[in-house]
Every structure is written in structure tokens, then in C-alpha cells.
């Protein structure tokens, strides 16, 4: 086609050179030739609108041929005009196709970007899920620990309560009484022979219970205090009260209670708990009191 066109151009040049000065000039045709040369030099047009360029070339050939055959100027102009429009069409077609390529390229790019973004999102979600799982596991572990601790605490409390109740029961058995100084167990006069420091068998049973209690609560100590009534001399009463306290102490250590946990003291006829003017009052005053220490082994002094 290019060859054809070249041939047509050659014909025209030939005609001009040959001195056909009478050949009518057409501005429209001149412009069409210029436009056509531009279109042919445009690689985009050559590549994207080859069919349209061919048709434009053919239209230009017809206009050239009309001029060569000296047709009416109006006919040449008209054909040149048509050629011009067809050349313009090649440009428009090339631009359209180029734009369409740009659209599909941009669409492809977007799809790629979206895919990448989605992949990244999925990765992130996986990561978050893994993190959440980890956190959940941690929380479960924490909850289990807390439950365990609560259970332990409850069990401990129950145990404490139980042991406290057991101790209370044993103290009740010992007829222990709560006083401002602490728990006191009173062994009455009837548990001793008159004017003797020897424990009767009934007293021994009471001491046995105390020994068991002390074995069970090794942190407790005892202070054994002896008292008498006002009958007899002060010194003999003092001795008797000491001896009776020591008798109880000996019974305890004989039963396996460590000697350093037991201390004794005699008070004679001091600290009477009843009047010494009646027989029953004097009987109440003849006694041995056993002070139980607190958990730290401390006994409040009298």
C-alpha cells in the first residue's frame, strides 16, 4: 500500500516536474498528504490502526488520481476531504485502542494489588487467630490456676476450720475455760489425795487427755500453777502447791511431753477463787490450774 502511495506521489511529482503548470492545486489535498505522512510516521497508528491507515491511503490515492486526471477541483477537494477524515479516523482509532489497553492494564494491576492485599489480610488474620489462640490458652491456664488456688484456699480454710473445731472439741473435753490470760484447765482438789501431791486415777485421766492435746499441738506449752486453801501454815501451803503442780508436770512428762514445754509454779493460798470460810469454798481453792499457751508458746503472766 505504501508502495502504491509512493507511486502515486511519484506520478504527481512527475507531473509537476513535467511542467504541467496548468494542473489545479488543492489545499485540501496538500493538507491530506501532510496528515497522511504524519499518520504513517506515528508508530501507534501503524501498530493499532493498520486497516484504517490502509483505507485512508486508498482514499488519498483516489484524490491524487482525480487531481492527476484533472477532474473538477470540487471533486478533488471532496475526495481529499474524505481522505483527510479517514486519516483523522486512524488517529482516533489508535488513541481509542491505546486507551483500551491502558484500561485493561490498570484493571490487571488492580486485580494484582487486590490479590496481594487480600493475601496480606489473610496472613494477618492467621496471625491474629494464632495470637488469639495463644491468649485464650494463657487465659485458660490462668483461670485454671485461679480455680486451683481458690480450691486450695477453700480446702485450707476448711482444714483450718476443721482443725480449729477439733481443737475446740478437745479443749471442751479437758473442761478448758477461756479466761483473759488464755485457756485454763482446772484440776480440782478431788483429783488429789488430801494433803498429798499424788494424783488420783481420775486426775491421771485428765492429764492423759492434756498430754494427747499437747502432742497434737506441739507449738503449745503449759504453765502449771498450784493453789491451796488457807488451812495450815503459809509455808506448808506454798510447798504443797508447788508439789501438786510438779506432780502434774511429772505426769505430763511421763506421758511423753517434752520437759521444756512444761513449767510449774506454786502460789500457796494466794489467788483464792472462793471464800475459805466454808468447806465447799476451801475445796474450790485447793486446785491446780493449767494455763495453755497460744500458738507461739506464750503465756500471759499473772
Amino acid at each position, binding site marked *: 500500500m505504501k508502495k502504491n502511495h509512493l507511486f502515486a506521489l*511519484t*506520478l504527481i*511529482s*512527475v507531473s509537476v*516536474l*513535467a511542467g504541467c503548470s496548468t494542473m489545479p492545486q488543492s489545499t485540501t489535498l496538500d493538507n491530506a498528504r501532510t496528515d497522511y505522512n504524519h499518520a504513517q510516521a506515528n508508530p501507534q497508528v501503524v501498530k493499532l490502526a493498520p486497516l484504517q491507515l490502509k483505507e485512508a491511503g486508498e*482514499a488519498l490515492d483516489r484524490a491524487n*488520481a*482525480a487531481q*492527476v*486526471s484533472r*477532474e473538477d477541483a*470540487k*471533486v478533488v477537494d*471532496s*475526495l481529499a*476531504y*474524505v481522505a483527510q*477524515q*479517514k486519516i*483523522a*479516523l486512524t488517529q*482516533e*482509532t489508535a*488513541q*481509542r*485502542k491505546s*486507551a*483500551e489497553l*491502558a*484500561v485493561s492494564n*490498570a*484493571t490487571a*494491576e*488492580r486485580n494484582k*494489588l*487486590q490479590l*496481594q*492485599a487480600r493475601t*496480606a489480610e489473610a496472613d494477618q488474620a492467621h496471625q491474629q487467630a494464632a495470637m488469639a489462640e495463644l491468649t485464650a490458652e494463657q487465659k485458660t491456664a490462668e483461670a485454671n490456676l485461679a480455680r486451683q488456688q481458690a480450691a486450695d484456699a477453700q480446702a485450707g480454710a476448711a482444714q483450718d476450720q476443721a482443725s480449729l473445731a477439733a481443737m475446740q472439741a478437745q479443749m471442751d473435753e479437758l473442761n478448758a475455760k477461756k479466761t483473759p490470760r488464755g485457756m485454763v484447765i482446772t484440776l480440782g482438789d478431788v483429783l488429789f489425795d488430801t494433803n498429798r501431791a499424788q494424783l488420783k486415777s481420775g486426775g491421771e485421766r485428765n492429764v492423759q487427755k492434756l498430754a494427747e492435746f499437747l502432742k497434737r499441738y506441739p507449738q503449745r506449752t503449759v504453765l502449771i500453777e498450784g493453789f491451796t486453801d488457807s488451812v495450815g501454815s503459809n509455808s506448808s501451803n506454798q510447798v504443797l502447791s508447788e508439789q501438786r503442780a510438779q506432780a502434774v508436770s511429772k505426769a505430763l512428762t511421763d506421758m511423753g511431753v517434752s520437759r521444756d514445754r512444761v513449767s510449774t509454779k506454786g502460789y500457796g493460798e494466794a489467788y483464792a477463787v472462793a471464800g475459805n470460810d466454808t468447806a465447799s469454798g476451801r475445796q474450790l481453792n485447793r486446785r491446780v490450774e493449767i494455763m495453755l499457751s497460744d500458738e507461739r508458746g506464750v503465756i500471759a503472766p499473772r
Partner: protein
Amino acid sequence: MMKNTSRFQLPQLSRSGVACAVLAGSVMLMAGCAGTPPTEQIAITKAAVAHASNAGTTQFAPVELQSAKDKLARAEQAMEKEDYALASQLADEALADARLAEAKSESAQAQKAAKDSQDASRVLREEINRKAQ
């Protein structure tokens, strides 16, 4: 070079002078000089102009569209006056105008679409970059 070619070409042209005359005659014949109305050509142009008359061409190629319509009208007038050569010539021009109008409109719309598409890509790229930060 050119002169050589000229000397070589000239006799050829003279020899085909008769052929040239015949060609010119046939062109005139085709143009309707002999009185054959270009009915088919007018119909084709009419269809092309009708097809090109749309919102896109009105917006993007109003000059070409108007030119096509005017020339078609004048071609039809020439038909009525039985000036078939003019009718054919005008129909030819109107057809070229109509086709160009359509091509211009399509090109403009495609370029707009390309710009939108590229803008969308840019926005998406920016958005993804923002998210990634």
C-alpha cells in the same frame, strides 16, 4: 535520480493516456453523471449518520456530527434535483464525517475510562500502602 525516474516514467504515462481517459470516464460514470441515482450510497450514509447520532458524539464530536447531518441533508436535496454526482460526493463526505464522529467519541470515552481506571489503581495503591503502614 528524480530526473532519471521522470524520463523513464513519462513515456509510460503517455502510453496509458487512453487508459487514463477511460478511467476518468468511468469515474464520472460512477459519480452519477450518466444519471444513475446513488440510492444505495445515500441509504448507507443515512444509516451511518443515524448510528452516529448519539449522546457520545453530541458531546465529544459535535462538529463532525453536525457536518455529517448537514451534508446528508444536502445530498438528499441533490437527489431530489437529480444532481447525482453532487449527491454521491456529499454522501461520501457525510459518511466519512459520521465515521470520524463515532471514532472521536469512542476514543474520548475510552480515554476517560483509561484515566478513571488508572485513577482507581492509584487510589487502591495508596490505600494499600496506607494500610500496610
